[in-house]
């Protein structure tokens, strides 16, 4: 959706590329080869996984966009709960034929060349990065915290005000719209590399007075729990 939101720039972008398979905008058969494949969403059904593997084989470069493709998305919370088989029965009377596997991000299934994170993605960042990919380079997102972008927009630090915020451990590149709107950074872009998770947890506990459960819930959002433990020092 954020790509459509680029508006006029999206139209101009379309003149520079040949679109192979874009279901949201066309009803044509698939093509044999892709230079660049852009994948969004979490592969859940067997069909999703099969299609993802096919697309990987056909593509030179595979880019994931959004928190679902990059980290698993909020639906990964059902795995953290540990009761998803019971949970599905409380929602569906007939569970036969409904795929309910463990949620996996795209990189757990195929090789990914570039991840553009966020829920939603930052369309400006997407546009800049994808144009670099078109020119033949695979860009790297600098491993800075959201705080770096937040202090340029906001007078107040939420943590210092005694409110929860994950800005310190979260990857910048969004432009910090959340704290600017008085909303905590809930880490939709995932953790940056080399974080001190324990320091973040104690800040949430001492400064923002969150309970263990509240901290856990916050760290689970967007399926980032696994990533947090992988990215620790």
């Amino acid at each position: 959706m954020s790509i459509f939101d680029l508006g006029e720039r999206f139209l101009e972008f379309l003149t520079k590329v040949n679109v192979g398979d874009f279901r949201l905008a066309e009803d044509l058969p698939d093509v044999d080869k892709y230079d660049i494949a852009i994948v969004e969403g979490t592969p859940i059904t067997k069909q999703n996984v099969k299609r993802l593997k096919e697309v990987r084989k056909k593509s030179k470069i595979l880019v994931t966009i959004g928190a679902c493709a990059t980290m698993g998305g909020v639906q990964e919370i059902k795995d953290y709960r540990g009761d998803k088989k019971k949970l599905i029965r409380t929602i569906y009377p007939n569970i036969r034929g409904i795929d309910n596997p463990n949620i996996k991000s795209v990189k757990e299934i195929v090789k990914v060349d570039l991840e553009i994170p966020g829920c939603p993605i930052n369309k400006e960042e997407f546009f800049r990065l994808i144009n670099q990919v078109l020119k033949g380079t695979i860009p790297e997102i600098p491993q800075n915290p959201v705080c770096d972008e937040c202090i340029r927009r906001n007078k107040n630090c939420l943590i210092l005000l005694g409110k929860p915020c994950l800005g310190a451990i979260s990857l910048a590149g969004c432009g910090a719209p959340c704290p600017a709107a008085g909303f905590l950074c809930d880490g939709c872009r995932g953790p940056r590399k080399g974080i001190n998770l324990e320091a973040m947890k104690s800040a949430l506990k001492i400064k923002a007075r969150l309970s263990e459960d509240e901290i856990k819930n916050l760290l689970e959002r967007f399926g980032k729990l696994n990533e947090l433990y992988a990215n620790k020092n």
Partner: protein
Amino acid sequence: MRIRIDHIAKIEGHASFTADIVRGDIKAAKIKIEEGARLFEGIMRDRKDVEIAELGSRICGVCSVVHTFAGFKALEDAYRIKVEEPALSLRKLMMLGQLINSHSLHLFFFSLSDFFGFKSDLELINAYPEKTHDAIKIRDVGNKIVEIIGGRTVHPLTPCIGGLRQAPDSEKLKKLFDDCRNILPLSIKLAELFANLNYPDFIRKTHFVSLTSYSEYAIYGGKLKVNGMELEPKEFLSRIKEFQAKDKVAKRTHFEDKSYMVGALARLNNNRDRLNLEAGKLLEKSRLRFPCYNPFYNILAQAIEIIHCLEESIKILEKIITQPIKVGEASIAERNGQGVGAIEAPRGTLFYDIKVKNGITESVNIITPTAQNLANLEDDLEEFEKLGGFKDLNQKEREDKIKMLIRAYDPCVTCSVH
């Protein structure tokens, strides 16, 4: 003869369709949703109440504003909290922005190609460059409304229990007022284009369900209008039956054992006398006659709603920009109760039915517009041989018309599986 459409393009999410044609009669028309279970109603449990709205927004990127508000409205209903002005008007504005951006996307990029036989929007864009730019400009204004008030275009940040946590920049609102006024003539031109298209001839009587209100064309709130009755959202929910067929990941709903239609056409059928001036004029000039039982006209109904939404935005903004805006969070004495939030999403009425104990969510039931429309759409397809000229169409043409009808409903498959 069997009809099988494996991937229905240009809808939000993945779905396929199968049916049999027995002696010219369509049998066993079924839409299959090709999505896995995300269990949103399950993951919201045992977490903080506000996460109903914050996680609910992630059900769908197209209509994140309506999911956010349906969640907060349900919480406000449970806690008996009333949203006061100007927060109420600002929320309504965001809803208008949401309808404008979603409708303009569906109308121009998902539906219009069907009328010309284009298989790709790129063909459409090349054939109608000026109209494409108009559609994008209209959509941009819808997005701007959401961004300026909500903090960003997708998954809004400012809504909270009781209203909005932060007021929008008044200079930006003034600019928005001008943008809406400037774009209104373009929206009328776009709707004229849709009024002059040839719609397939297909009629099947059904029931129309939407919110209704005496004071305005209901989008943000009101009672449920169905079969001449007006019901409180809670009562309506107690009278519908949500059911799940075997092997189906999306549920369907019936009201009094019958399918019903929600969305722009249902709203026009129920509330057209409350449309704003220019929208009403266009409706008058169009070929639409009421009650209108041709679901293909849902497309034209959306085009008319865009005009209405821009006029309504202008009305609200005109009032709001002359006064200082004060908003804030409500203080909540007790976070206990059961509540229902009902709201008109672009595709029809969306319900959140929730139960909270000590600020922690106990249960959530979400009924999306597409889940409600699926039964009605399948009933339409079951009688699709009544389509004007159906006998003379070849297999390929029949498939194209079926896809066109499915797209006319503007289904959000992603939402229907939540």
